[in-house]
């Protein structure tokens, strides 16, 4: 049976709506490469549906989008989906990428100790710069674009069959390229701040567990 992945896409506030928009590129890549996936979007990104999917479908890769804390990944309307030492065994044998704040620092560690193959995430808050004039339109927000590219590099690298370590390296390299790109010109005063917050995300991106873990 071909491997499939699960992606959660809550949309209940403008910040997670950005992450939801960014996910379109991941879905498009999967569809173009005949990679099977299931998405739990909007109100379907709830604990019941996520739990049932993980238990029954046993996807090898799980991509979480949403808010996070040190010990929790949240879904629709910030319902806790995965909690450290409570139900993180749901991630057993899986490769996980959590585009969610802080959860690599504690949840990632406990999930791996409870059998998660590899956990990629952030041990501090994930930040991104937004265009004040594009509040409800992430597709036209050019200042958020580098953050999308940096984060999506993890997911798309995993979908390409790269190991967790390679996916992280690829994302780190993407960040370095973007930092150089935005350093080459101070044409816009916003670039200085894009550089700093991109550096922040790059610095706090962590991989815990089996570096050789793969989705495919």
């Amino acid at each position, binding site marked *: 049976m071909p491997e499939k992945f699960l992606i959660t896409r809550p949309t209940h506030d403008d*910040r997670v709506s*950005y992450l939801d928009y960014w996910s379109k590129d991941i879905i498009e890549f999967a569809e173009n490469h005949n990679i099977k996936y299931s998405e739990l979007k909007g109100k379907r990104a709830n604990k019941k549906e996520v739990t049932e999917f993980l238990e029954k479908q046993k996807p090898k890769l799980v991509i979480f989008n949403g*808010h*996070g*804390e040190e010990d929790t990944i*949240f879904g629709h309307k*910030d319902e806790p989906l995965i909690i450290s030492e409570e139900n993180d065994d749901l991630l057993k044998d899986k490769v996980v990428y959590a585009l969610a*704040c*802080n959860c690599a620092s504690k949840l990632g560690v406990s999930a791996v100790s409870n059998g998660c193959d590899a956990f990629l995430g952030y041990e*501090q*808050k*994930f*930040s*991104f*710069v*937004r*265009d*004040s*004039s594009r509040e409800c339109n992430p597709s036209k927000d050019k*200042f958020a674009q580098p953050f999308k590219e940096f984060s999506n590099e993890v997911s798309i690298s995993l979908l390409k069959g790269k190991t967790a370590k390679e996916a992280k390296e690829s994302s780190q390299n993407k960040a*370095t390229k973007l*930092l*150089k790109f935005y*350093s080459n010109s101070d044409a816009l*005063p*916003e670039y*200085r*701040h894009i*550089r*700093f*917050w991109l*550096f*922040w995300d790059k*610095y706090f991106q962590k991989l815990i567990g089996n570096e050789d873990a793969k989705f495919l």
Partner: protein
Amino acid sequence: MEEKNNKINKEIKELVIVRLESMPDTIKISFGSGEELTKKQLIEHVKEEDIFGKLIINMQVKYLESLKNL
């Protein structure tokens, strides 16, 4: 020595504040599950040297040091 370190820290803090003051109103920072951070809020954290403010200062220093290797 302590006085010298304090002076350096004060200079770094002022540098970070100057950098944050240059943040244009055309952008805002999405930062976790809280509200967007404004320039004023970022500067307040740094001025007060709370946990987040100290983290911003430390990360600005790391960021500036990293530019050597870009």
